[in-house]
């Protein structure tokens, strides 16, 4: 790939989903060519596409994989990302776009707020948020858009809780995070979010609360952490944790309603939910591609990735690798699949994964417990999909 020859004959990324709960069919065709294979990006540049499970694990654990988005060969999985390279949004640079040793330091700053014990403390609050949303839906029904009325607000409220956004500001903060979903508003929304978070952190220096930001304000006051960097942390948690979680919950609901035999197993034995969440994570994996650039020659199988080559990891494809999973294209809530790659692998594996697991489990288990007669209010074919770096349903009309 170091020779820049004609890429026009190569398969092109991004690919789009035909069915909301299956990866693009093209991922399977790519893996049939090879678990690591050359493709062309929308802008014509060549890049490696990784769809093999073993190969994804091996490459994402390599110390020679960089997330430096300023490298000229750094991949651009979807065209919309170009606008986020705007100088007005420098804050997305933290954590998901830094390499060691900077990344190690940043991750260590945030890690104490994401321990399993901290998540266990948050769980009752998440349950309360979910019950309140379900009360509201039941009062409003019997037909609602589950995205607008349940998944989006519930996840935003958990985020407010996690970060320690004061009650008086929550509506404003949550609205800012929603505006981020709109491609026409995303750059402005990120800029406004940055301003709001900076102002909130200054307020917290004199009026502390009990969220993640409060834990870290102490470090700012002690001179161990820069306030601007803390703003970046908050922003990256919003970016990485909100849309992914909300979309996965909504898509899980659709998927279970379309697999009534699997849903029946869960209604019959709710203790299966944590296992089912893992399988739904494997099956649905809504990320459109993790980007890396190689910083040394790397041998994988009989291929050599050259220093400076770009790579895009198509983890929804790797989660369907038949070399790793039996009947990979079947949803089976009884199987144990903790080795899916939905949260990535290597040092950048999702820092919020155990929070996401709790959010998914609580939101799904309680929804079906309180509304067991839940059904789609429109045929699946009519439910609008949102393709992109994070796949999702634009709405999910349900009834009971």
């Amino acid at each position, binding site marked *: 790939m170091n020779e820049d020859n004609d890429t026009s004959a190569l398969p092109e990324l991004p690919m789009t989903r035909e069915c909301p709960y299956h990866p693009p069919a093209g991922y399977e065709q790519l893996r049939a060519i090879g678990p690591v294979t050359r493709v062309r990006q929308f802008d014509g540049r060549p890049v490696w596409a990784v769809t093999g499970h073993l190969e994804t694990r091996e490459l994402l654990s390599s110390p020679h994989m960089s997330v430096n988005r300023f490298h000229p060969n750094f991949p651009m999985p979807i065209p919309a990302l170009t606008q986020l390279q705007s100088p007005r949004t420098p804050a997305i640079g933290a954590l998901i776009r830094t390499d060691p040793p900077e990344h190690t330091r940043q991750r260590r700053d945030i890690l104490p707020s994401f321990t*399993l014990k901290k998540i266990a403390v948050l769980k009752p609050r998440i349950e309360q948020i979910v019950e309140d949303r379900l009360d509201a839906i039941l009062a409003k029904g019997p037909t609602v858009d589950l995205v607008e009325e349940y998944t989006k607000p519930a996840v935003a409220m958990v985020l407010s809780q996690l970060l320690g956004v004061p009650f008086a500001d929550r509506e404003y903060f949550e609205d800012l995070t929603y505006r981020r979903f709109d491609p026409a508003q995303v750059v402005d929304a990120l800029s406004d979010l940055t301003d709001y978070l900076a102002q909130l952190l200054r307020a917290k220096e004199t009026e502390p609360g009990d969220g993640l930001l409060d834990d870290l304000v102490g470090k700012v006051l002690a001179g161990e952490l820069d306030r601007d960097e803390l703003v970046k942390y908050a922003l990256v948690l919003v970016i990485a944790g909100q849309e992914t979680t909300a979309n996965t919950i909504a898509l899980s609901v659709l998927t279970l309603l379309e697999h009534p035999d699997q849903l029946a197993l869960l209604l019959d034995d709710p203790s299966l939910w944590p296992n089912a969440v893992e399988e739904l994570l494997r099956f649905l994996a809504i990320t459109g591609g993790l980007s890396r650039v190689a910083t040394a020659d790397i041998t994988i199988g009989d291929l050599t990735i050259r220093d400076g080559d770009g790579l895009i990891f198509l983890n929804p494809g790797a989660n369907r690798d038949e070399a790793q999973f039996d009947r990979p294209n079947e949803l089976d809530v009884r199987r144990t699949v903790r080795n899916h790659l939905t949260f990535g692998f290597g040092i950048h*594996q999702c820092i919020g*994964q155990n929070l996401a697991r709790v959010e998914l489990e609580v939101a799904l288990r309680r929804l079906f417990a309180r509304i067991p007669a839940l059904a789609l209010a429109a045929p699946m074919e009519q439910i609008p999909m949102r393709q992109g770096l994070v796949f999702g349903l634009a709405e999910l009309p349900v009834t009971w």
Partner: protein
Amino acid sequence: MSGARRLVPSGDATRCVGAGQCVLTAPEVFDQDDDGTVVVLAEEVDESYRALLAEAAYLCPASAISFAEHG
């Protein structure tokens, strides 16, 4: 000492990225410190833990978990 093999788990806190997979896999053996990185709770465990330790090592995204054996 009998001939029973003992397994010695280890968790490298400098490599650890706090994913928590080891704690979820073998909570009697691994825990997280307040800073979020791995701590090993059991100096050694018996052979019955072999599969769990192997699973924890396999699932760790940062290759921070391993085990040795002595019998």
